[in-house]
């Protein structure tokens, strides 16, 4: 899936100044626009869904709504943290390319803080070549000496709703 051309999304996925929720995923620093975040919850009892890609853990009951839970550490090949005590689920609102909105839950190591990012702190995603999966980022943000990766949540959903969803045909 890394063979997807990156030209069109360079236009659609520019980092936008504003407030971001910072979190840790597999030991790395990430952030996501607060406009996407609906709520942050403690991990719930997950019902696994057969035949889903490994990084979709299953579905949970979020106050009567059924929400799919993603573990992006598996998708991005990141290590699991030693302790899961501080693990949280960030419920985000993602827009698929067809315009429909879906709520999904992202399991993260821990949630840090909300940061305001100005235009001068934002950079486009540097190109590491096709082998490093940077297509799920809208860009990078510099906060002091640290760097946070800005997650493109819509792009993650797009992977799943694309024609080649996982390796399963009908």
């Amino acid at each position, binding site marked *: 899936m890394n063979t997807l051309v990156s030209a069109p999304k360079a236009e659609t996925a520019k980092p936008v100044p504003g407030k971001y929720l910072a979190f840790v995923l597999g030991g790395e620093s990430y952030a996501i626009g607060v406009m996407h975040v609906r709520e942050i919850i403690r991990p719930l009892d997950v019902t696994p869904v057969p035949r*889903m890609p490994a990084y979709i853990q299953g*579905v949970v009951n979020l106050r009567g709504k059924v929400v799919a839970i993603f573990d992006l550490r598996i998708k991005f090949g990141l290590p699991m943290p030693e302790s899961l005590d501080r693990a949280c689920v960030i419920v985000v609102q993602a827009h698929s390319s067809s315009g429909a909105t879906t709520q999904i839950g992202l399991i993260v190591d821990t949630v840090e803080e909300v940061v305001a990012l100005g235009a001068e702190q934002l950079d486009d995603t540097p190109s590491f070549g096709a082998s490093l999966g940077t297509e799920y980022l809208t860009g990078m943000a510099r906060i002091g000496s640290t760097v946070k990766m800005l997650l493109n949540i819509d792009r993650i959903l797009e992977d799943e709703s694309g024609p080649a969803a*996982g390796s399963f045909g009908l």
Partner: protein
Amino acid sequence: MSDQSLLNRLFASLEGELTLVSAGSDQSQFPILDLLGNMRDEAREGDLAECARNAADRMVSIIESGKPFTADDVAWLQDVTAELRSILAPPASASKPAAAAPQAAAPAAPPEAAPAPAADMSVSLNLEGDGELLREFVTESREHLNNIEQGVLVLEERPDDADTLNSIFRAFHTFKGGAGFLNLIPINRLAHALESTLDLARQHKLRVDRPIVELILRGRDLLKLAVDEIEVRVSGSRPNEPFSLAFAALTAEALAVVEGGPAAVVIALPKAAPAPEAPASAPMPEKSAAQPTATVKVETSKLDSLVDLVGELVISQSLVAQDLTSLSRMDPQFARNVAQIGRVTRELQRVSMSLRMAPIRGAFQKMARVVRDVGAKQGKEVRLVTEGDDTELDRNMTEELTDPLMHMIRNAVDHGIEMPDARVAHGKPAVGCVHLRAHHQSGSIVVEIEDDGEGLSKERILAKAVEKGLAAPDAKLSEDEIFEFIFAAGFSTAQKVTDVSGRGVGMDVVRRNVERLRGQVAVSSTPGKGSLFKLIVPLTLAIIDGLIVKIGAERFIIPTLSVRESFRPQAGMVSTVQGRGEIVNVRGRLIPLMRLSQLFGVEGAATDPMAGVIVVVTTGTAVKCILVDSLINRQEVVIKNVGDLVRRANPAVAGAAILGDGRVGLIIDVHVLSSSSFAYADAA
């Protein structure tokens, strides 16, 4: 300059109000005064302003007297209206006002509008100015037009039903008023002409016979077309170009009836209608008179989230109640309060689920028209008798049922009911009868369509099945098995392809639609006596009765409707067929076995069939055995959408439901599982 179109509109409204005026009533006094005042102000000067001013002055004195209209007042109003019309549209109606005057004796008879224009005027919409109003007009009009249709069908049976006549009249009147206000002139005129026709009937000056019913129905259909046209323009799915329909011809026809007067009509058309034989048993009465209860329109998404939340409340409540019982020192007062919360919660759940429910009447009413039209087209006399109109079911379900019902009703009239002479020859009444019944049965709704026609011909179906290669010529088939063929794709025994049916896209589509709704269709028939089709569908699409099964550590829900039986297999029942997987011998019938644990990759499930339970599921004609570890229980669950994400990756998951402990259980799509084409691409 005064605005001519506004004046025309005001005048149209005035004419509308006038139809409500009658001696001895004070209805419409204020609206008329208001309209006259507006006309006076708008016209500012000239004859029109003068005439309107005088009229308004007299209206003021009438209103101030505090008395209802007298016969003189009514006659005067007719004259004033005629005068106003002649000022507004001099050439066309100059010859008319005098003719209208004699009719003044009929207080509510609206004076004739200008003779129908020879050419059809086109209707153009002012979307910028009237967008919102037009939208409202469309919604309201649909309701009115439906009421009209229903009412006219009742009238056909009982032409003298004053309540029905009045309700149709009012519906036309309101419709006309709306059209006039929005300056939809041809629509307004047609509605007006039809209203006038009805008005004559209301005053017993015109007999409502077949031709009149036809006329009104045609008019109603044309108006519906017009409303459809407006709707597509308002919604923006089509450019806002003026449109024109054959309004003029129909308007002229209706006016001819009105002007032809009662006598001519009665003589020309002696009562051909089956009114005298209209059966007393016809359970149609009170339909139009059904008292409208106050309603509120609510977005379905809000309703859904209410149901979601109530479901959660039930779960939280039962968790609290469980915790409570484990508390050793229990305060009785506290326990009572918790129990009370439990009762209220359950009541709340019941009410919230019932919010979606509506009587099936709407769907049934549409059928009356179908029976009538199909019967008329084929020269058959058919009567529709409905029972259980008040049976409630999910509103979505009513909509989804309409198409299959319509199809089956058509079939019943087209294939079932014989021609009148053939019926008489067989010693049956010439008028055929189709019964449409609905009732609840153990959490489902049963809809029955019964005709007293010739019944299904086993021989013809079998011959056709053999011809189509569906059955062997020498096959020994039971009656049910033979009837089953009519649900096969492309199967029709109609001798000739008619307008309405016999094209072979029929019962298979019905069955598919009904199964999509998780329902079933059954048929039985007695030769010479008629056929009975039975639809059994759940009351709602939102809830299913589910069998909760355990596989490994996971729970899945199998819709009970497709479960035929379940049993613990005995040694030797399961055998492996080379290359075709496993089969189970169920009382001599060999049914393929699916191991859900393998298919779904669930770990820790029983591998030995003898340690598990076999659930036999059926969908249509396919039968499959599903191996599960154990059955947990059977309960009603609220279906939740799992989203495209899951459905795409695993089509065998139909949805999800929140189980009693608050966790999610997945609902298995038995149709997908048992379809022969289903297989995971990488399935071993």
